[in-house]
């Protein structure tokens, strides 16, 4: 499946060398599908000085994509990685297609597009060299940013071919390199921002500085959806460093702009200090809590469902004919994403335009989302994407962008909004909880997984009618084995007013519920009683998000020290190496521990 079909191509000439512009079919990346399936991409620029500029089009949230995407292009381009300069592309969905990063599918989904971009460029450079030498293209080979005429040994660097190549038409098809010839893919190439990170250069959203910038906080109601009716405005405005304080109305969408109180100050310190003095009268808001939610969900999975969002397969028949039925009961709570960089955003509203510096996973949606709220056209909204200190699905929602936009619109100055860590935990768009009673596969390769789940999907709105959490059976194309888990047979909705969002990777709920066997392995090697194991995993958000709460080498050693010696196959699976640790930790994080250790595990 190498060909990207149905594509139109165009050539863009620029004074600075060869720039290849592509109209490429951009496959849908989850919900961020571009309305027009044919979207131009301009990802490569080779200049006569030998520099090969490759633009990284999607957000770097720690998944390494700012390095991985250019590597794919450079490989097919047959570039010398030493010549490659990587820059973050501007946010321009019309030019680049989807510029969101989520779902852990970006490389798999975009692989062929990026290869095509590189391969087409390489084909044109080869043609340019062949024409220069007046030899057949078939006698030319590429490598290390150069074309070689194999019979004569003549070499032309790409840099010397830019002008000629720019005059050539973009071919419809171009051969991809054989995998055996890969020189970049499959090798370890360090992150392109590593030097800046280790020397403390500003990179992240929270590092944004604008001339004349002021600093803001935004306080929201502890109950989701509640709004302020009054606050001690006069008192707050008298505090040192405070420039302004005011109430902000929401826009009616909990995942965008909730009502609250903003304080603007001359430093983050003064804004944080003034926030401590806030006295706000709140009105309304949901009062559900996790305990009532949990009780409700337990009832739902235990009893015959009154309302089902989805029901697939014949659960009773499957259980009656199964070779073995293992009855399990699992639940997990609302889960915070807890990105290490607290939510923040910087923006400057100038009356008929706004400029935004956003550490967001969904930068490409900001202009369209904000335009109606600000009364601007999408073209009047400029979004700069910064490096992101952890995404995990949290930053798909752009609530902090709305909040800073509301504040800068009011005061007309560049504003940096910073959430405190407490804000981040209190107002995370939690991964929805789920309670599941299930019969897992009787053999490792079994392809069904039957059960009932009560969960809380994103609250329905006018735009998103109620639906069950989606389950995708799609797998990376590199994985040839069929999925071992199929969707649960029942979904029941247990509503919550809390805004929710995905919690990496997809499909969030199923993925976390699925790796039960991994959890069992963890249990088997842990000598702590189940209640304590659960406590280790869930006792507090701090311990939870800091995966080291149970995954430090020291803790791991404590957990395994007294365990029975592992079988030889288990030893093979669990070497004490970094690769194994990095793979294992997220799985364990995402797995669900039984809340009641004895069988049967139906709620009492």
């Amino acid at each position, binding site marked *: 499946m190498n060909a990207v079909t149905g594509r139109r191509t165009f050539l863009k000439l620029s004074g600075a060398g060869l720039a290849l512009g592509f109209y490429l079919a951009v496959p849908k990346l989850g919900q961020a599908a571009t309305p027009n399936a044919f979207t131009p991409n301009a990802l490569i620029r080779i200049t006569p000085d030998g520099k090969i500029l490759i633009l990284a089009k999607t957000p770097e949230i720690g998944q390494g994509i700012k390095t991985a995407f250019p590597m794919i292009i450079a490989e097919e381009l047959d570039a010398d990685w030493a010549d490659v300069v990587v820059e973050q592309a501007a946010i321009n969905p019309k030019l680049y297609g989807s510029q969101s990063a989520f779902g852990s599918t970006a490389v798999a989904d975009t692989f062929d597009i990026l290869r095509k971009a590189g391969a087409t460029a390489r084909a044109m450079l080869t043609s340019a060299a062949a024409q220069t030498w007046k030899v057949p293209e078939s006698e030319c080979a590429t490598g290390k940013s150069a074309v070689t005429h194999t019979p004569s040994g003549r070499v032309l660097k790409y840099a010397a071919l830019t002008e000629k190549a720019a005059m050539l038409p973009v071919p419809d098809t171009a051969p991809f390199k054989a995998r055996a010839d890969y020189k970049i893919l499959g090798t370890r190439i360090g992150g392109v921002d590593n030097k800046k990170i280790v020397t403390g250069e500003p990179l992240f959203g929270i590092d944004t500085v604008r001339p004349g910038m002021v600093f803001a906080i935004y306080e929201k109601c502890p109950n989701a959806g509640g709004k302020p009716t009054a606050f001690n405005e006069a008192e707050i405005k008298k505090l040192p460093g405070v420039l302004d304080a005011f109430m902000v109305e929401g826009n009616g969408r909990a995942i965008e702009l909730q009502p609250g109180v903003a304080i603007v100050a001359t430093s983050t310190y003064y804004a944080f200090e003034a926030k401590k003095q806030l006295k706000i009268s709140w009105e309304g808001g949901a009062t559900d809590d996790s305990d009532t939610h949990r009780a409700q969900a337990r009832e739902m999975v235990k009893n015959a469902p009154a309302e089902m969002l989805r029901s697939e397969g014949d659960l009773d028949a499957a259980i009656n004919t199964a070779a073995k039925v293992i009855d399990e009961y699992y639940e997990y709570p609302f889960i915070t994403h807890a990105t*290490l960089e607290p939510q923040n955003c910087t923006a400057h509203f100038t009356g008929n335009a706004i400029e935004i510096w956003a550490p967001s996973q969904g930068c490409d949606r900001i202009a369209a989302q904000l335009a109606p709220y600000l009364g601007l056209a999408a073209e009047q909204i400029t979004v700069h994407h910064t490096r992101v200190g952890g995404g995990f699905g949290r930053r798909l929602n752009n609530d902090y962008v709305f909040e800073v936009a509301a504040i800068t619109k009011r005061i007309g100055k560049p504003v940096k909004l910073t959430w405190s860590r407490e804000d981040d935990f209190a107002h995370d768009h939690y991964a929805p909880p789920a309670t599941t009673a299930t019969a897992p596969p009787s053999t490792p390769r079994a392809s069904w997984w039957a059960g009932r789940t009560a969960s809380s999907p994103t609250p329905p709105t006018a735009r998103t009618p109620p639906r069950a959490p989606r389950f995708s059976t799609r797998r990376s194309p590199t994985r040839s084995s069929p999925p071992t888990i199929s969707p649960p047979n029942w979904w029941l909705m247990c509503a919550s007013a809390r805004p929710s969002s995905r919690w990496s990777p997809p499909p969030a709920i199923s993925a976390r519920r699925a790796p039960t066997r991994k959890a069992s392995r963890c249990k088997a090697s842990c000598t702590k009683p189940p209640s304590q194991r659960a406590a280790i995993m869930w006792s507090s958000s701090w311990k939870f998000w*800091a995966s080291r709460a149970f995954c*430090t080498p020291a803790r791991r050693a404590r957990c395994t020290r007294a365990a029975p010696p592992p079988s030889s196959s288990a030893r093979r699976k669990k070497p004490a190496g970094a690769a194994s640790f990095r793979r294992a930790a997220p799985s364990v994080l995402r797995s669900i521990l039984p809340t009641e250790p004895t069988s049967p595990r139906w709620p009492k």
Partner: protein
Amino acid sequence: MAKSPGIKLKVNGTACTITWHPPGAPLLWALRDELNLLGTKFGCGAAYCGACTVHIDGVPVRAFSTTLAEAAGRDVVTIEGLAAKGGTLHPLQQAWIDHDVPQCGYCQAGQIMSAAALLDATPKPTDSQIDDAMQGNLCRCGTYWRVREAIHAAAEAMARGPLGKG
């Protein structure tokens, strides 16, 4: 603008006077918002995560939990001041690059500052000494194993000496 009487301290070898922030303010906000030294990160504001780790007179401290009054007159080193004056990276910074330690990278300035203090005190740390010294630095992405590898590599590089002999 709120003013303070002027707090004098030395940051990365340069004498500075803090005027925006009062003596009771955390050192972190003076570094970030006033001195524009943005490498030191705000993570939790409660000394849980270690992202704001800096050195004061060579000792690793959390810049959020250290007031300007406590830092006054003392020698503060941030991640920006760790490399040699000519720009030669500290062996830890080089090891961090060589071992591709960062994922999102937000915690790494704090990790490196804690590691630098560790190597000053313990030039050849064992795994458990590393784990103990780095216990206060959280990484949400889970780079701990590479952090440990990089510290070992830096310790070896420092033992070989500046000329790489040994």
